[in-house]
């Protein structure tokens, strides 16, 4: 074996045997370093004749390159091994709970969510959203809506009254969102298509009634809208809101002072198993009141009932929220019990849209 072969053999063995990068560096210094074995051989080239150098030069350079390559390759291996060893020692228990992010904890109240759902549907039908005050005058809450003074229909409303002012008139907490119909018709020329979500108040409290609740009023006024349109609008709304392809609805004659003719609307449901199931079964559940706006109401707003016509409806937002999302009792809606909010609340980024679906 030539001297070069011996050198190479020794170098490669040392490289293979280097346990870590530091040991490998030692081998490099011992072989290719200034005083290394291969460097020493390189220095002998200067004393050689041209002939000798022609042979020994390439041989030594080849040796140097091969050893260098072997060191580089070995270094990569050692680096990778060292990294693997480090990673193996750097474990965490990923099953430990993370830090809950605010987005995962915050919740939107079902009433707000349902109002956003309703708004999405009616926006698509060309309605705008109107509002009005909770504290109303007797005129807007009753008189303008064709509730005659002393009429039994007034009593059915279980009205909250505020303390009378100096001249004895007393304001009321609105018993329905219908006053906003008047406020809108007073200032807006038909055609009108509005929905009015808001708080309403009645002196009444049990599992399905609360002293404060939420209503959605709807109003369409133009020169042609009739009960056939009313039926279509409410049918489409209910299908969209409850996210069902078909829903049996029952329209039956009823009475409200501010509509004539008046209709109450029931939806098909099954109450046989404790929980109310929509769209099946043979029971009916009343969900809203509606009708053609009473001629007196139109007159009270300065509209000629022989020219203008249209319909109005009122639906309990809390009630349809209860129905849609399986909430059996109304009272906890207003109790802010964190456990209830956790169960029934909605995630803040689950914004209801028609394009993405109301509920996800």
């Amino acid at each position, binding site marked *: 074996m030539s001297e070069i072969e011996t050198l190479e053999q020794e170098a490669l063995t040392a490289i293979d045997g280097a346990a870590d990068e530091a040991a490998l560096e030692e081998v490099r210094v011992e072989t290719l370093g200034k005083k290394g074995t291969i460097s020493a051989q390189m220095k002998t080239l200067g004393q050689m004749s041209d002939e000798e150098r022609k042979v020994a030069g390439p041989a030594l350079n080849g040796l140097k390159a091969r050893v260098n390559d072997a060191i580089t390759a070995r270094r990569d291996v050692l680096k990778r091994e060292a990294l693997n060893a480090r990673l193996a020692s750097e474990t965490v228990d990923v099953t430990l*709970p993370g*830090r*809950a992010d*605010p987005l995962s*904890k*915050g919740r*939107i*109240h079902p009433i*707000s969510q349902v109002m956003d759902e309703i708004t999405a549907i009616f*926006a698509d039908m*060309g*309605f*705008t*959203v109107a*509002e009005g*005050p*909770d*504290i109303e005058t007797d005129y807007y809450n009753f008189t303008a809506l064709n509730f005659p003074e*002393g*009429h*039994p229909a007034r*009593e059915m409303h279980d009205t*909250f009254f*505020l303390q009378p*002012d100096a001249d004895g008139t007393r*304001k009321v*907490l609105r018993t329905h969102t219908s006053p906003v119909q008047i406020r809108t018709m007073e200032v807006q020329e038909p055609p009108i298509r509005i929905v009015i979500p808001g*708080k309403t108040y009645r*002196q*009444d409290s049990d599992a399905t009634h609360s*002293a*404060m609740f939420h209503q959605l009023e709807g109003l*369409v006024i133009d020169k042609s809208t*009739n*009960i*056939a*349109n009313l*039926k279509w609008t409410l*049918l489409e709304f209910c299908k969209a809101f409850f996210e069902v392809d078909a829903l049996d609805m029952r*329209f*039956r004659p*009823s*009475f409200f002072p501010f509509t*004539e003719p008046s209709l*109450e609307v029931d939806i098909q449901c099954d109450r046989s198993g404790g929980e109310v199931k929509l769209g099946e079964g043979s029971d009916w559940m009343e969900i809203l009141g509606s009708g*053609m706006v009473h*001629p007196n109401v139109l007159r009270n707003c300065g509209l000629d*009932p022989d020219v203008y*016509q249209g319909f109005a409806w009122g639906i309990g937002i809390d009630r349809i929220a209860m129905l849609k999302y399986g909430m059996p009792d109304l009272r906890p*809606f*207003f109790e*802010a*019990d*964190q*456990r209830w*909010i956790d169960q029934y*609340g909605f995630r*803040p*980024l689950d*914004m209801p849209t028609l394009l993405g679906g109301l509920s996800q």
Partner: protein
Amino acid sequence: MKFTLSWLKDHLETDASLELICDTLTMIGLEVEGVDDRAAFKPFVIAEVLTAERHPDADKLQVLSVNTGTGAPVQVVCGAPNARAGMKGAFAPPGAYVPGIDVTLSVGNIRGVESHGMMCSERELELSDAHDGIIDLPDDAPVGEPYANWAGLADPVIEIGITPNRPDALGVAGIAADLAAAGLGTVKTPDVPAIEGEGSCPVSIDLSAAGDFAPAFGLRLVAGVTNGPAPDWMQRRLIAIGLRPISALVDITNYVTFDRGRPLHVFDAAKVHGNLAVRPAKDGEAFTGLDEKDYTLSSAQYVIADDDGAESLAGIMGGASSGVDETTTDVLVESALWDPLIIARTGRDLGILTDARYRFERGVDPAFMEPGLDLATQLVMDLCGGTPSEKTIAGTVPQPDLTIDFPLSETQRLTGVAVDKARASEILTALGFGVTDKGERLDVAVPGTRPDVHGKADIVEEIMRINGVNAIEPQPLPALTSVGKPILTTGQTRTRNARRTLASRGMSETVLYSFIPRDHAEHFGGGAQALSLVNPIASDMSDMRPSLLPSLLAAAKRNVDRGAHDLAIFEVSHAYRGDQAEDQHRVAAGIRRGTARLETSGRNWDGTAKAVDTFDAKDDCLAVLAACGMDPNKVQIEAGGPDWLHRGRSGTVKLGPKVVLGHFGEIHPATLELMDVTGPLVGFEVMLDAIPAPKRKGKTSKGALTLSALQPVKRDFAFVLDRSVPAATVLRAAAGADKKLITNVAVFDLFEGASLGENAKSLAIEVTLQPTAKSLTDEEIDVVSAKVVTNVEKSTGGQLRG
């Protein structure tokens, strides 16, 4: 309004099933609220007592052998004193539910003797209060037959909801007429023959003081009556609809009230002294009603009075002093008309709701006043005997005088379905309207039974409900002809943005009552008389809230009491400054308690979260403002806030000197004490309506972005300052050193310690210089730095920390 099927069939000839009748009632506007098909009576059969022996081990019990009509006789232990061999009664077998004792029977063992069922009393079947013994049936009662069938108790009871516009349906006859109009049979309500009577009525009626309250009044004496119990058929019907039989005379008035919607009253003639007059009550006049309660009347209320005083609260309730009883021999029968509004007001003011008031305030048919008197008279003669006098009629029965000019096209205009002249006329005639053909129009005369019908729309409703609402096919509203425009107002958008922003900050939305306890309202700057409820549902729900914070703090207390200590909740709703529409304003408010911070809360393997502090509330507050279009860099933060916040740890967010956008901070300890909740608790409120309206709509450009290619330079400074110097002053002074070059100033350290001396603090800031044209030289940087130091020192009195 309740009635039985057989009662209905007294007025309606029909083959229709119960189900069809009920469905039809609902679809013509008389909503069926409940049907009792009397299945509860099914288990009870007529049985015969074969033998009755003394119980071997009990003096008061007997052991009966009972033939129930099927199989061998059964052994029954019975405690009724009237149980005896040979009698017939109502037997309940094991498994039967006995309503009067609320027990489902099983085979019992009573003092060592097995009992296989029960012989029932009337009370046990809820037929009456009688419980002296078991039901004792006549000998011809058929053993084995269902008792209810034989006794006429299997008559289904229908309950319908009557809307205030349908006084005509407050009598069974009116309901039958409606069903007949809807095609369910023919009306067979018997005509009421007029009764002449003998001799004049000895008691006269004076309406001179009654004003408009009593248009007409009919009265008649029936002499020589015997007032025993009403016959079984009448009692059964009254019981079925929930009335208690009293005596024949009283039951007759109740029966006619429900049969014809015609309330009546009967006086014991022996207890009426002198003539009767309808007059306003005297202020403070005492009256004892048939309900045995004492009422104090006012001059706004009307009575029927004799020489002794008020004998009846007219149209609402008779008086105790002249009521009939079993000793009554001469009876005065009253059928009158009263003003609906005064009846309603009187009943409401006195808190009396009777079947009479209910009908009079909705309107009774004037035309039936006299027939009602005759019908009652006939029933008195039939059931109690006696001789009627002639009737005396005071006042004048008003005649219906409303005729509506009805264009036939109106039905289509309002409902979308055309109903032709023949059909419309048929419906209206069947409902009792007078119809005159005027070509394309009808003259429709409104009968006295329908005081609710005033105009064309009411006629459309009548035609629609009888022709069928289901005949109206849904028709789409005209669709939009362009892409929809935004439909929310700025306020609505802010409300939505505030909600989702706060929820995305880990807070839970609440919806809380608008009314709060008075002391809470006062504490939060409210409690004005104008915002106080006259009739709150509870004393702690009495005042409209001036702020949302008291509601949230009360909610926090409830949660803390349940063991939820870390809480982040908010509400976006209205608060009330006064009772005018513009006093109602939108507020976003939230509170954080315990360790419910934005980043994390509670205990964690990685360390326990810090308690919430003022800056958590400040961040929430500014986040809401940003979400509502208000740049938080443009607002001013002033120290201090409203009284319910900690004076030294609260701030007010302002826009200019006047506009208050909100406030934030620690809740004042005194407020926590009042609200009975413990901290740490911080909160904020943002007045959403106070945020300036967004500038010019349609301006969507955000402007071009010029980015510098040059590296920014950062320099740190620390100043020793008096503790009272606001950081904002330091930041403003530093930024003012070179408004072009300095793009950001940030606080990166605050140190307060004894080493600095009392009332001193060290505030460290990082100033960012952003060159635009060329890199800065050291000299240029030094000039700006020196200016920063000078500016801060000058405006704060502090010194650069050495």
